[in-house]
């Protein structure tokens, strides 16, 4: 395994462990300590405290759980929609497939952030699950494009022609022959998409329209840190480092998966 791939896998496991076990090891992220407002990092508060006296480390660790859940759930949604549409659009020739192809191209042309901003303006701030659904429903087009490309390639391959000649029905060909072949490409795109979902969730929370409080979120913490940059820069460092680490981990993991599943493409 390449060195970068190893870093990606290690970081991902580490972050997943922090998100799963971490919240039990640190204090309550919503409880104010009472006296330590904006305390700098020290033995009792490793990453300092915020203007309400809440522990930054505890909030960062709890934020990991929320961020990763949102990123993973949205990616699963995007993967299912994307691969389904991609296979239907590329796996056979008929007007439905052509229409779906056009639809995928169209969906690729509308910037995702704008769709999300309109959605959030209409619905107000969302909870983690609803936000994950929104991110998933706006994140499928890149996955669909890759899955369609793969399905197009497979549609003309020998084994699909053979199964057609043997009398396999169209649904059977799509499900048994083309879907398994198109899935790896979709999986790679989806893994790389985790990084986008992480950044978008953090970005929306930074704009004050992401996950609804009281759930701690890295983007929301960064927003709260901004007015205190001069007096308490540590408010920024905890969530910012966590966010960048998670994004790098997801990107490297995606690249590693790509190398593993598709050795020709480097």
């Amino acid at each position, binding site marked *: 395994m390449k060195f970068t791939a190893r870093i990606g896998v290690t970081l991902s496991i580490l972050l997943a462990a922090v998100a799963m076990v971490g919240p039990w090891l640190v204090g309550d992220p919503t409880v104010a300590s009472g006296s330590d407002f904006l305390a700098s990092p020290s033995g009792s508060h490793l990453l300092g405290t915020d203007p309400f006296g809440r522990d930054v480390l505890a909030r960062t660790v709890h934020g990991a759980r929320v961020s990763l859940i949102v990123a993973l759930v949205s990616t699963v949604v995007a993967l299912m929609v994307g691969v389904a549409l991609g296979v239907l659009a590329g796996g056979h020739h008929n007007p439905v497939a052509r229409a779906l192809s056009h639809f995928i191209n*169209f969906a690729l042309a*509308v910037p995702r952030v*704008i769709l999300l901003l309109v959605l959030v303006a209409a*619905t107000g701030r969302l909870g983690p699950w609803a936000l994950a659904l929104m991110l998933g429903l706006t994140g499928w087009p890149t996955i669909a494009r890759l899955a369609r490309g793969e399905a197009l390639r497979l549609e003309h391959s020998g084994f699909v022609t053979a199964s057609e000649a043997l009398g396999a029905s169209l649904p059977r060909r799509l499900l048994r022959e083309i879907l398994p072949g198109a899935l790896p490409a979709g999986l790679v795109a989806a893994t790389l998409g985790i990084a986008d979902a992480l950044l978008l969730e953090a970005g929306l929370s930074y704009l004050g*329209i992401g996950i609804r409080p009281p759930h701690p979120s890295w983007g929301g913490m960064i927003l709260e840190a901004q007015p205190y940059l*001069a007096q308490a820069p540590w408010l920024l460092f905890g969530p*910012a480092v966590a966010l960048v680490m998670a994004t790098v981990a997801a*990107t490297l993991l995606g690249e590693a998966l790509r190398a593993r599943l598709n050795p020709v493409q480097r």
Partner: protein
Amino acid sequence: MGSWAVRRTAGAVLLTLLGSATLVLLVQLLPGEPLAAIIGDRALDPVTEAALRERWGVGRPPLTVLLDFFANAVRGDLGVSLSEQRPVAEVLLGRLGPTLLLGGATLLINFTLGTWLGLWSALRRDTAGAKLLTGITLVSYAMPGFVIGLLLVWLLAINWPLFPAAGYSDPLLASDASAWTRTGDVLRHLALPLATMVLATIAVPIRMQRSAALETRDATWVRAAIARGVTPSRVAWRHIWRPALGPVVTLLGLWLPMLVSGAIFVESVFAWPGLGSLIASAAASRDIPLVIGAGVLLVAVVQLGSLLADIVNRLLDPAQRNR
């Protein structure tokens, strides 16, 4: 070329219309009539409220609302902003200048510096400098614009106060200041948002130019040129860079959405009075007419950019030019 250009332009117009329709219909089709609730939450005078309900179709079929939206948009009427109580078109127009300044400057730097760095790192692939650059591009790719922006503010506006941390111009500037002073003031305010935009988005042109140049670097015509004794810099620009330009121009079209979404976050960090910070604050205050108006404009900008990139690409590639 002619008929192709017409078809491509028609496609871009169609995509813009469909994109705009999606934004309008999205609000219409969400459960619970969100717009009715939002209008109800604000204390508006009855006449305005009635006009808004009529316009955004509380209780009207979504398709009629959509057709009306287009009919009005053609006349430059995008409705009235809920939070600013002014016509949306007027609000948008006031925000256009700063966005074009920031976006244009970012494009210019990314496509000169980014191209040059990409070519440079492809030619010196195994040097420490090129490896360092690859590492930096990975981090800049993974770092969201608003984090880069805040780090720059912390470094260059707070710890080492060289540049203003926010805004477009100094409100305390004397009203009789000369044009030079005013320009200098805007440029000083532009420095940090521009640096942030460049750092957040330059990774993509560098990577694309690098991989395109890596492919042409080992081409037979390059070896032939070196053997003929063509100078190294001429080989680099004329024989390696020129054929590797196509993919990068194509990228311009794909990359514009990234620039638009980058601008939304970066402008918000620096309170830069452009379209990006406008659509973000409009979404936060749930000003649906304004969000849709700004969204439609940004969708159109993205389509226009991708159209121009395709046309330039066509002109650059002799094999495609006459088709």
